[in-house]
């Protein structure tokens, strides 16, 4: 049975005079993979960032596993620990090694022992295919490798849901697949995911649902097959015709 994990109700957000999120309603069920697509400036990244409150909202309600997002403070930190986030620009801790990047959260936030955190960290690095780079610094890795470390870092917290904010947009084309492969295997493994991306192949392959946004609103929300073959809105038809002709 569908069990809602992330719920947004009537969410509005402004950047100054710009209304970037307009009455957003979105429910992500446990185990569901939702891919958010749309043109630049449509608000999809902002939507993603409101879910762990990196962006606050002006009105509306966001709950994760039934709990409303608290105000900034210890409680919010605890909630963020359960929500993994992967950024477009990786944001690995530049002064820490790969292994330290993956163990910092478990040790400082979850209070795990160093040895336990490192065992688990190495397992996760193995899983994303970079176990042999554990002692390097982020700057010594390629973009694709860095992003896979970032995914391992988020997974190390055993999150209930993973948010991906354009995880492949800063990558060289030949490195995109190594990241998408990791994401696909996560999706297949039952992880709840919200993925903002321009990778239509990934959306077709891994998404349970595609959400199309334009100008701050959710225009369309449907299963990938239906969305890509017969989108119901003109805006989505127009968008797809522009990106799929190449």
């Amino acid at each position, binding site marked *: 049975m569908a069990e809602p994990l992330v719920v947004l109700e009537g969410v509005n957000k402004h950047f100054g005079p710009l209304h970037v999120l307009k009455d957003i309603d979105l429910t992500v069920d446990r185990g569901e993979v939702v891919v958010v697509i749309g043109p630049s400036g449509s608000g999809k990244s902002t939507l993603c960032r409101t879910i*762990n409150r*990196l962006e606050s909202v002006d009105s509306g309600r966001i709950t994760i596993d039934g709990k409303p997002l608290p105000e*900034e*403070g*210890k409680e919010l*930190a*605890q*909630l*963020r*620990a*359960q*929500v*993994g*986030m992967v*950024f477009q*620009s*990786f*944001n*690995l*801790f*530049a*002064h820490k090694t790969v292994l330290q990047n993956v163990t*910092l*959260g478990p040790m*400082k*936030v*979850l209070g795990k022992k160093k040895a336990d955190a490192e065992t688990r960290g190495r397992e996760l690095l193995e899983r994303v295919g970079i176990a042999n780079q554990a002692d390097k*610094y982020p*700057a*010594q890795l390629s973009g694709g490798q860095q992003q896979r470390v*970032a995914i391992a*870092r*988020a997974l190390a*917290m055993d999150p209930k849901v993973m948010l991906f904010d354009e995880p492949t947009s800063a990558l060289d084309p030949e490195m995109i697949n190594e990241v998408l492969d990791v994401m696909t295997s996560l999706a297949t493994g039952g992880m709840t995911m919200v993925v903002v991306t321009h990778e239509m192949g990934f959306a077709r392959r891994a998404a349970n649902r595609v959400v199309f946004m334009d100008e701050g609103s959710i225009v369309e929300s449907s299963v990938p097959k239906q969305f890509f073959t017969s989108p119901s809105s003109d805006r989505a038809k127009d968008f797809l015709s522009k990106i799929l002709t190449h």
Partner: protein
Amino acid sequence: MDAVLDNLDVFVEGFTTTLSLTLLAAAGALILGTLLAAMRVSPVPPLRWFATLYVQAVRNTPLTVVFFLVVFGLPEVGVIVSFYRFAVVALTIYTAAFVAEAVRSGINSVASGQAEASRSIGMTFSQTLRLVVLPQAFANIVPPLASIFIALLKNTSIAYAFGVFEATQAMNRLINDNGSDVIAIIAAAALAYLLLALLAAALFSRLERAVRPA
């Protein structure tokens, strides 16, 4: 020249005090300045206001006036200690304002994504600052910190006017006792300050290389 060589022990005593004033005040200013910078970027408005007020008030007051405030002000509230300790306090208060601004610029130099990533794995504001932002900030501000601490080394000479027997006081005593060798005595003191400052600069430039990111 003889006046210098015959009185090396006086110089050594003076410069030892200069050096200890510098090191104590540097340590104090580093701690206080870092705290002030942390307050400056904290999410709590009153802390931000206090730190801003502190920096603006102290940075824009002459060091000699800060010394007067400490030496005459603290006894008013019951704190009576040696002139040496008053000097450490005054130098710490003054230098902390400059350290705070250097640390703040270091914090601003760390990409905002670093703090976002840290908050995203559930770290609190203070954990984010201590474990992620400040270590990177400090690596970026070694050169301005070197300038601040070299200025501090020279600023310790103000303590001379408040009864502390440091290098400038030592120089002054030797001048009074050896009227014929004034230029040699001043030159020797200036040279010793210069050597200490160059030594500090050399240490900081090694530090800069050591903390340079891989």
